[in-house]
């Protein structure tokens, strides 16, 4: 189940984001994640940012110490991969709005590519602190998506939150579905906006993970286990949960409120 693979390529995507590519033949679908083991260090859940064929990839944003150490992996280094785990984005919708914040594009880009390949039309609302941090902007352009951006510092696109862009787009176009990944308060806002436009929203959420097998309870989110019931959830399942956008659990299982995003 666990494969030891050597990283074939390391791509710096943005100042804070790095993609690692590696051979991994198990079939995978956009939305699914792997557990990536950095020998002697840790093992982390990471969405597959490349899901097609024998060369898969993950795209890591520098957050705390661990993700920084993941970023320091070089081509040729050995890592352990198990998975893919979790569910996938449903490819039925034909007119899709993707809303990504932070490293959210890591999972949204391959999903949007698959949808476009399947004949869907995709509009992407991408948010970042500043223009160079816009992740996979080129990938969205290349797949033929209509791209709108927001930056916290106004260095490109809308000055402010990507949620503002999303709200605007939802008011102007008839989408079948919204796919979103980013901080939970962001996803919550998107979900509320889409609800009034009666568009179903699917959120890819993160929780601390250990087993990834739906057993250890580390990733509990209300009645769900993100590792097997998710990571993709229809927003209407998340919105009623006291924890969604408010708290997660640390590795000990304690509830910890989310800081600002």
């Amino acid at each position, binding site marked *: 189940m666990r494969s030891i693979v050597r990283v074939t390529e390391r791509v710096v995507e943005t100042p804070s984001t790095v993609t690692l590519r590696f051979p991994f033949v198990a079939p995978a679908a956009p939305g699914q994640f792997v557990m990536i083991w950095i020998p002697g260090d840790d093992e982390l859940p990471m969405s597959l940012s490349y899901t097609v064929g024998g060369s898969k990839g993950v795209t890591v944003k520098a957050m705390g110490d661990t993700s920084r150490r993941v970023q320091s992996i070089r081509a040729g280094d050995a890592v352990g991969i198990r998975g893919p785990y979790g569910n996938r984005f449903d490819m039925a919708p034909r007119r899709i709005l993707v809303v990504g914040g932070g490293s959210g594009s890591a999972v949204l880009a391959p999903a949007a590519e698959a949808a476009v390949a399947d004949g869907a039309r995709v509009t992407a609302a991408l948010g970042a602190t500043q223009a160079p941090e816009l992740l996979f902007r080129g990938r969205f352009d290349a797949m033929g998506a209509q791209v709108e951006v927001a930056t916290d510092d106004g260095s490109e696109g809308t000055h402010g939150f990507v949620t503002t862009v999303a709200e605007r787009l939802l008011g102007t176009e008839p989408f079948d579905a919204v796919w979103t990944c980013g901080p939970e308060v962001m996803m919550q806002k998107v979900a509320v906006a889409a609800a009034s436009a009666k568009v179903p929203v699917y959120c890819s959420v993160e929780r601390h993970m250990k087993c990834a097998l739906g057993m250890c309870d580390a990733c509990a989110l209300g009645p769900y286990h993100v590792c097997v019931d998710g990571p993709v959830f229809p927003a209407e399942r998340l919105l009623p949960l006291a924890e969604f956008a408010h708290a997660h659990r640390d590795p000990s*299982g304690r509830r910890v409120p989310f800081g600002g995003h």
Partner: protein
Amino acid sequence: MSSLVADLAVRVGSLALRNPFLLASGIWGESGDSLAGAWAAGAGGVITKSIGSLPRAGYPNPTIEEYSTWGLLNAMGLPNPGMDEYPREISAARSHGALVIGSVFGSDAEEFARLARRIAETGVVAVELNLSCPHAEGYGTEVGSDPKDVEAIVRAVVGSVSVPVIAKITPNTSDAPALAVAAENGGAAAVSAINTLRALAIDTTLHRPVLAHGLGGLSGPAIKPVGLACVWQIYERVRIPVIGVGGISTAEDALEYIMAGARAVEVGTVIAHQGIGVFSRLVDGLSHRLDELGYASVSQAVGLAHGAGR
């Protein structure tokens, strides 16, 4: 489904269970919602994650390694939110009607007694003592391998709580029955066996243990034959009820434990393979099998394999 006639309700001492299938400690046991979910899925009772005095993050990942479907190695390292925070999870589970058994781990009799007292205040119907985790320094097997220690810990806990006390016995010993006898002497209402077997996996490419902690504990189908031997031997040595644990994935497995002497069983690893829906399959499966064999109740089958004169 045909109409089921066999009575699945069992009594483990004074503890009445609607069916013999308990959620094993450490699986779906960190959050109250998950405990409630296991109860809603049909468990006869749910055992909490083992709770200690202070929050523990557990070991770094990797914390698990899978062997096909016959075994699972883990070294979680007893992660838990600590006894100050955990009661709210029990309240949440109980507010959904779940019958909750509280599991605790400590490093000595005094700590066990203190933790048991606190968890008992939350309305759990029984307390299980983790005397058997095989990979946590200073806890589990390290305090549960000597009958004298087991007796002292159990006695201290029994003196501190009014609910039944269940001692969870380690299989990593030459004489599990002696530990069970010690628990009985200390006043335990029941013993449960087994916890995981001390085990290890090595990655040869990286020439290092796979789990961050190195040593871990083996669970799943591979340990069922070992758990059955422990329950069999314990049943012959104690008068208190025995709860069987280890590698149960079908009703037939459970019935093996019951015939070896178990009045109830706990299920863990199978949930990773079959999901929480396994509880209703186990319940239905056991009903059907008891019907087929002509037993009117689980109780009729308890320990039956000991009667077979050879």
